[in-house]
Every structure is written in structure tokens, then in C-alpha cells.
């Protein structure tokens, strides 16, 4: 169990996080180049290019919530501080991603549908996910000690997991204004090949940036936890 010691993980991240930053910068140049130079969509024109930030952010906000919820369950069952710390460091980045989804999505919606916001199943369930993220983030920072806030926030994350399949499958279960899934769907992707590769590269670009941020937050929290423990010990 030496590997899973939080201090070891923190040291490991501290040593190798620079690689993530370089990867991000490389992918950023490539993906921006591709986004600028690929041909416009035959129907939506240039406005469809918002997709290359909207979709990665959407995938990541769902993915991060899944990881956060799983880490919270593991933390609750095994009382493991490492899992709680992982959930704590993902929370603000997940919130940022879900806000990005709502913001870019409403611009895209205004340009194509003709409305910034409608109350269809996909948009509403995504808004609920954002509120759960916000609640999780606030609960994490509203107690004096890590132990209490970790426990309360983890319960919220476990409950919030219920919303994930609803966000994903809302476009299949109900009629919505939002279009259906383009990539992860029965019968393969319905994007043109060049769009799919651009989307994947911009996804990994945003992913590396997010993981870099999460690693930084993780390192800071481990430091804070050590400080808190030392303070308790001295009292």
C-alpha cells in the first residue's frame, strides 16, 4: 500500500505534472490549427465549430462526476482520505467544465436553434448536474475540518450519480430540441472523419489541461491536510 500513500501520489504528480502542460500546449496548437482550417458544416456553417469546445467539456463534466462519485463511494466505504482528496480536487474543475458546457451551448443554441435556453430534458438535466457540482463544491468548503465536509460532500456526490445516465440518455428517452449523440451511439459516429479526429484531439487537449489543474489542486490539498494534522497534533 506504499503506492497509494497520498504523499507519494502527490510527489509523483509534482514531479511529472510538467509533462501534462507540454502535452496540452502541443495539442492546443494542433487542435486550434485544425479547428481554424477544417471546412464548415454544410448546414450550420461556421457556428458548428463551437462543438469542439462544447463536446469535450460535456464529456469531461460527465466523466469527472463519474470519477468523483466512484471515489466518494470508495472513500465512504473504506474511509480512505486519498479517495476523498481525489474527489475534492476534481470538484472545482468539474464545475468549471459544466459551466463551460452551459455557456458555449447557449451561444451555439442561439446561433442555430434561435434560442439561448429552452427547458428540454437535456438542457435541464445538465443544469441540474451543474447545480450538484456547485452544491458539492460549496459543501466541501463550508466546514472547518476536512473530515466533516468530505463526508457530507461524498453523500451528495453518490446521490448525484443518479443524474449521469439521465444527462446522457435524455435525448433518447424523451423528445428534445438538443440533437442526439453523434459519437457514442449505436451504429457508429455520425460525424465526418476529419471532424471526428479534430474532436478527439480537442478532447485530449482539454483533458490534459484539466488533469494538470486537478494535479495542482491535489498537491495543494495534501499540503493543507498535513498542516491541519500538525496543528491538531500541536494542540
Amino acid at each position, binding site marked *: 500500500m506504499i503506492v497509494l500513500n497520498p504523499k507519494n501520489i502527490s510527489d509523483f504528480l509534482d514531479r511529472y505534472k510538467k509533462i501534462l502542460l507540454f502535452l496540452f500546449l502541443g495539442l492546443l496548437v494542433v487542435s486550434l490549427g485544425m479547428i481554424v482550417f477544417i471546412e464548415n458544416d454544410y448546414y*450550420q456553417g461556421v457556428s458548428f465549430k463551437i462543438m469542439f469546445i462544447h463536446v469535450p467539456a460535456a464529456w469531461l463534466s460527465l466523466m469527472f462526476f463519474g470519477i468523483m462519485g466512484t471515489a466518494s463511494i470508495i472513500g465512504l466505504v473504506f474511509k480512505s482520505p486519498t479517495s476523498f482528496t481525489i474527489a475534492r480536487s476534481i470538484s472545482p474543475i468539474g464545475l468549471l467544465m459544466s459551466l463551460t458546457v452551459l455557456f458555449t451551448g447557449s451561444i451555439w443554441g442561439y446561433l*442555430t436553434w434561435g*434560442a439561448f435556453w429552452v427547458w428540454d430534458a437535456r438542457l435541464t438535466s445538465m443544469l441540474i448536474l451543474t447545480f450538484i457540482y456547485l452544491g458539492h463544491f460549496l459543501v466541501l468548503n463550508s466546514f472547518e475540518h476536512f473530515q466533516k465536509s468530505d463526508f457530507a460532500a461524498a453523500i451528495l456526490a453518490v446521490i448525484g450519480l443518479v443524474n449521469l445516465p439521465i444527462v446522457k440518455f435524455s435525448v433518447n428517452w424523451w423528445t428534445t430540441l438538443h440533437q442526439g449523440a453523434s459519437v457514442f451511439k449505436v451504429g457508429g459516429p455520425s460525424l465526418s472523419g476529419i471532424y471526428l479526429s479534430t474532436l478527439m484531439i480537442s478532447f485530449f487537449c482539454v483533458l490534459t489541461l484539466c488533469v494538470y489543474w486537478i494535479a495542482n489542486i491535489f498537491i495543494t490539498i495534501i499540503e493543507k491536510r498535513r498542516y491541519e494534522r500538525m496543528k491538531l497534533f500541536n494542540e
Partner: protein
Amino acid sequence: MKFQKINSRLKTRLIFFIIIFVCFSSAIYLISYALKDKISFFYSPSEMQALDIDDKQLIRVGGLLKENSLRLENTVWYFDIIDEQEISVAVIFEKTLPNLVEENKGIIVEGIYKNNILIANTVLAKHDENYMPQSTIDKMKSEGIWRGD
């Protein structure tokens, strides 16, 4: 002995959280099952005909914009919405249409259904999940494998 004790406590906690999760998911499932019709954003024209609606109630109808039905007369738009069962509903709309409204493309209309005409106050363009450049379409057309339009 001690190990067994910890193990059983772990099991209790695990079962506790699984019960929380199952309770909440079944609650959400039941709510969304009960509100199935309310959660859906729009009706298709054929679903709408089966409904019992009065002429004060706002209703959303969606489908494809029928070919050769869109026309502008005295700043009022007239068009038909058609669904897969080939059932259509006539719409009139007095404001500006969104850019992406085109014949044979998705459209959603919100308004009042009166005397077999839907008087719209909002029109939204619904695009689908297929994205491709015009050059790909031209290429597919020249090879004869394009199935759109």
C-alpha cells in the same frame, strides 16, 4: 477476529450506500416515468391530433418542414410541419424565422392550435446529429451513395 469485525463493518457501510443509491435512482425513475409526457419537449403532428387540446393552451409541435410549403405573404410566414407518418399540420408565424429554418429540416413550433391551424409565437430550428463538409456531400453525390435530401 479483529479483521472479521472490520470486514463486517465495511460490508454494512457498503450495503448502506448501495441502498441510498438504489432508493434515489428508483425515486427519480418513478418521477420521470410519471411525468413522461411533460418531460418530452414537443409532440409530433400525429401525436398532437390524438390529444385533446383547447385553443388557449400553448403546445409545442415538432417535425420536418414540409417540402414546397414555406411561403411569405404580407410579412406572415405560412408552412407545414410533417412527421414520419406523413401527417402534417399548418402553421402561421408573424415574426422572423431563425437562420437555419430550411425545407426538409427539423423545426419546432410553439403556439396555439385553433381551427386546425397552429398560430405560432416561437419557432426553433432543430438540427440533427450529422455533421459533414459540403465537399464530402458533393463527393458522395458524384459516387451515387448520398442518401440525404
